[in-house]
């Protein structure tokens, strides 16, 4: 770095010098090149960070703030600070915990099934030699169908008045009502969700699969590894980062499941998720204070899920240059 410091002005200079010194203490070997790298890195991420915060910072802070108030749009003048009462009310309510349970069930079941069939889809997209374009496009199409429409189509398929599923499934009466009880209704919603979002999973897994070197697989084959061994010892470990990102984002999305429930059951017969509860509180009942508290709780629980997944896979994306 240049030995000549820029002309300084009083305190301001002292402050920057201090900061610089402290940084130097921590990393004495920070070279010119490293500093240049720092600056370049920060400049490259800046636009994305600005755009992300532009839309979300204010609403998130506002939700956090309102969660400590009793505030209803129907009587805005009664707004009052009530501390953590909203949280206490939510956390001691059986409905909240039931919805958490249902939401976790949606997430675990759909993500687990999607991971398995999504991987199979990715393998097929990767390996298939005939009609490649058609097969790939067909696999991706469900993701392109608007959720409102796909949820609606599945709901229609399941209803006994207009659907075909009762007629096609053996052992199910033609007049069976899928949406009359919790278990079948939850299954119907899961089927719709899985159908719709598996392509997302397989697309991310395909990107990872494409990076596993063929030479390595070939070498394992020569060494006499079975197909199963090659899968578990060579292919999967080498695409761990891709699997983590796929599972993580799919799980976060599944945890906030909303559209399908909205279209298929409107939350009836115990199919309501946490997102749906937030929606009911804020949009339908105008309880902004309670709704905000629920949003924060939802956010915190998602945070926990994300933390567990990242820990589970032990992949550090922040480590540069693929040394990890």
């Amino acid at each position, binding site marked *: 770095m240049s030995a000549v410091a820029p002309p300084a002005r009083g305190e301001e200079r002292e402050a920057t010098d201090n900061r610089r010194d402290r940084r130097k203490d921590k990393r004495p070997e920070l070279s010119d090149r*490293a500093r240049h*790298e*720092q600056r*370049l*890195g*920060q400049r*490259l*991420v800046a*636009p*994305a*960070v600005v755009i992300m*915060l*532009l839309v*979300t910072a*204010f*609403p998130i802070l*506002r*939700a956090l703030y309102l969660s400590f108030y009793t505030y209803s749009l129907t009587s805005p003048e009664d707004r009052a600070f009530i501390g953590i009462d909203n949280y206490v009310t939510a956390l001691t309510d059986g409905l909240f915990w039931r919805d958490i349970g249902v939401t976790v069930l949606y997430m675990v079941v759909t993500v687990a099934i999607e991971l398995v069939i999504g991987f199979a*889809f990715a393998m*097929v997209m990767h390996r*298939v030699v005939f009609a*490649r*374009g058609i*097969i*790939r*496009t*067909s696999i*991706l*199409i*469900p*993701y*392109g169908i*608007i*959720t*409102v*429409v796909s949820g609606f*189509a599945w709901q*229609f*398929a399941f209803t006994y008045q207009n659907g*075909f599923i009762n007629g096609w499934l053996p052992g199910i009466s033609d007049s069976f009502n899928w949406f009359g009880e919790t278990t079948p209704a939850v299954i119907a919603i899961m089927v719709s969700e899985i*159908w719709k979002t598996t*392509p997302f999973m397989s697309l*991310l897994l395909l*990107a*990872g699969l*494409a*990076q596993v*070197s063929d030479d390595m697989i070939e070498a394992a084959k020569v060494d006499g590894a079975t197909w199963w061994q090659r899968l578990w010892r060579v292919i999967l470990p080498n695409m761990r980062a891709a699997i983590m*990102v796929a599972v*993580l984002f799919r799980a*976060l999305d599944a945890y*906030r499941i909303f559209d399908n429930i909205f279209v298929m059951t*409107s939350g009836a017969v115990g199919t309501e998720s946490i997102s749906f509860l*937030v929606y009911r509180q804020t949009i339908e009942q105008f309880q902004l204070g309670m709704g905000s508290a629920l949003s924060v709780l939802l*956010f915190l629980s*998602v945070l926990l899920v994300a933390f567990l997944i990242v820990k589970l896979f032990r992949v550090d*994306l*922040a480590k*540069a*240059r693929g040394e990890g």
Partner: protein
Amino acid sequence: MSGMKQKIGLVVGVGLILVWCLLPVVWIVSLSFKDAVAVTNGSPGFFPADGAFAGLDNYRDAWGNDQFRRAIVNSLGISLISTTLSVILATLAAYAIARLEFRGKKLVLTTALAIAMFPVVSLVSPLFDMWRAIGLYDTWPGLIIPYMSFTLPLAIWTLSAFFREIPWEMEQAAQVDGATSWQAFRKVIVPLAAPGVFTAAILTFFFAWNDFVFGITLTSTEAARPIPASLSFFVGADPFNRPASLLAAGAVIATIPIVIIVLIFQRKIVAGLTSGAVKG
């Protein structure tokens, strides 16, 4: 022998996958040909029954709706613009995260994740107030910006994971072999990075194309209203008596651009899939 067995297995597997993926699509198409009255009365069965076949009536009605045609233009424009911008910004950020050492890197990844986790439902009403205040309500940028904010996290994470695995030494190797740094970048790195970038692009595009919550709350006229919101206006006031066949026809029309775009993009993913060959 085992090769033969494998081939049969693959064909059967592909068959099953196609049935699973396309059956509901065919169902929507079949629904779109059903007569509205027959659907109201209840018409179980996959294909339209005798006398309940509506021909192209539903399509004519859906397409005849000015507001719906305008919504297709809005959706295409908004989704394509937000995809392009989002992918460019995410590529820059992911390159920095995967390749450079700088402070605040973890913070960026964590912020992105936190944003991706916040429930969209609870962002809507403050965003509505904000957009009204600065005049972005019911405009294209008013939807493009939130779509970018919510697709950037996924795009950054996907691309960082992808860039991390690229054998960047190849670039230096090409330079040693006499390529200029621009040539090395264009001929070596771009083809390796392309499948990741196009994956991110498809995901971003689908997010924007699919979104319902923002589309319905941040628009009020056909100036910016996208397809999913517009379809909900077909539905009408009575949730128990939705014009299913009309909706299905609208959905089929709205899906055609998606098929075309996926066909184009998936070819790009294929083009980049040679990356495995150069590694190792």
